[in-house]
């Protein structure tokens, strides 16, 4: 164990975890909207929209995140048509390629989580609203959505933690996130054990915080 290396690389890895958290939060927020959008498509009784949303979730849950990020980053970069279009402004940047891949991936899982949450709402809640003459829109926003969010909190907390670990793939498209910087330090010191132990501990610490935040939210919104 090289204690000096551990002390030296700790601050570098800590500042790299800011990039990791940025990637995580931006993609989770975009992914949440995507997930909500597709979940609503699934519960509306429209066969075409439902199938479309199902196909999306099926494709993104059924392929590895690494493959998705490679297709978006290296794959699209090879297509001349895309390179000459306005899309290239975004796809040129590794940061946005990673965000797109992460958001689409977590969006697929989120849509499943929210869909099942919507479907488990007891019909009695909705009927109670209807019998009071509450408009359908208000029932949806004030009754269905809040209950669905509460129902899906434990599963969604899990998804955040899975995505946190997923962000480590950003280093494969040249981003200097926690894993990227860890690999960089190893490439000059040739000591993987020390560096990966610290990087792993930082990931563990972030997981610990996310876990407890979700737990607190669950408690707050329990009924």
């Amino acid at each position, binding site marked *: 164990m090289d204690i000096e290396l551990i002390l030296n690389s700790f601050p570098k890895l800590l500042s790299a975890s800011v990039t990791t958290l940025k990637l995580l939060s931006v993609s989770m927020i975009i992914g949440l909207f995507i997930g909500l959008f597709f979940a609503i498509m699934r519960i509306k009784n429209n066969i075409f929209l439902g199938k479309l949303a199902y196909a999306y979730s099926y494709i993104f849950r059924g392929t590895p995140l690494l493959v998705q990020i490679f297709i978006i980053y*290296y794959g699209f*970069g*090879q297509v001349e048509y895309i*390179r000459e279009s306005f899309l*290239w402004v975004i796809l*040129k940047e*590794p940061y946005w390629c990673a965000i797109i891949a992460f958001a689409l991936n977590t969006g697929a899982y989120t849509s499943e989580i929210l869909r099942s949450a919507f479907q488990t709402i007891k019909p009695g809640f909705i009927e109670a609203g209807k019998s009071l003459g509450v408009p359908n829109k208000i029932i949806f926003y004030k009754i269905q959505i809040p209950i669905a969010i509460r129902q899906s909190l434990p599963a969604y907390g899990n998804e955040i933690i899975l995505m946190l670990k997923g962000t480590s793939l950003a280093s*494969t498209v*040249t981003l200097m996130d926690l894993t990227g910087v860890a*690999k*960089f330090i*190893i*490439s*000059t010191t*040739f*000591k*993987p054990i020390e560096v990966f132990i610290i990087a792993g501990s930082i990931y563990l610490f972030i997981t610990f915080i996310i876990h407890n935040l979700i737990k607190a939210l669950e408690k707050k919104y329990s009924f």
Partner: protein
Amino acid sequence: MIKKFSIGLLFSLFLTISANADKIRIGTEGAYPPWNSKDASGKLIGFEVELAWALCRYIGQQCEIVEQDWDGMIPALQMRKFDAIMAGMSITDERKKVITFSQGYADEVASLAVMKGSDLEGMDTPEGINLSLGGGSVNKALKTLTGALAGKTVCTQTGTIHQNFLESGDVGKVNVRTYKTQDDVNLDLASGRCDVALAAAVAFTDYAEKSGKPVILVGPTFSGGAFGNGVGVGLRQASQLGGTLGERDAQLLNKFNKAIDQARKDGVISRLAIKHFGFDASM
């Protein structure tokens, strides 16, 4: 009868173990053509793969070539996943702190590359600079490069002499982007995400030839300084481990040095270099 049989079994077991212990395992990346790469069927090919077999014949021991990602090459050697590195690894002072090298067997120059039509084409620099020599023309060339590279995204492979050079400050503060393999660097150079890339000159000419993409070399070729002193066989430092294992590592260094001497004398290194590089890169 059973006793005899089990002794025989033990003996043959011992033989296989010692035979295995005598096998030299050589680690290579398999992703840095023409130094080392893989053919369509996944078989390791290239200059160093053929040279490794030749050196093993001179040493007179069995060999096995092991594939290893570049970024884990030195740690894998130290953890005894293999006994020697032959992966286009240049002999540098930084690496010598953790491993040892045989004498060099080949030398290459590094070069910048751009896509045709880049504004870096036609840079006014000498044909080649040797950073170890220094002097006025080298300083002038570095100054030209500093100006040319400012604001550009320069791509290179992680943990290479090329990355070290770009981060040394010799060409100012450069926006460096690093990749796991040279293939990834080539892809992003072609896509336009990289304005310019730095690697072994042969890595670019090989890519240009095989892909048909208009990749062209610009600026001077680099040698010396951060670019090291040729490519050699990377080995564990014998002092890292005493006892028989340390002894074996020390012997391996001698064996490789002798084998390289013989291969050079017989013209084997030159012949293989011309076959794979198109010119005599042996040293």
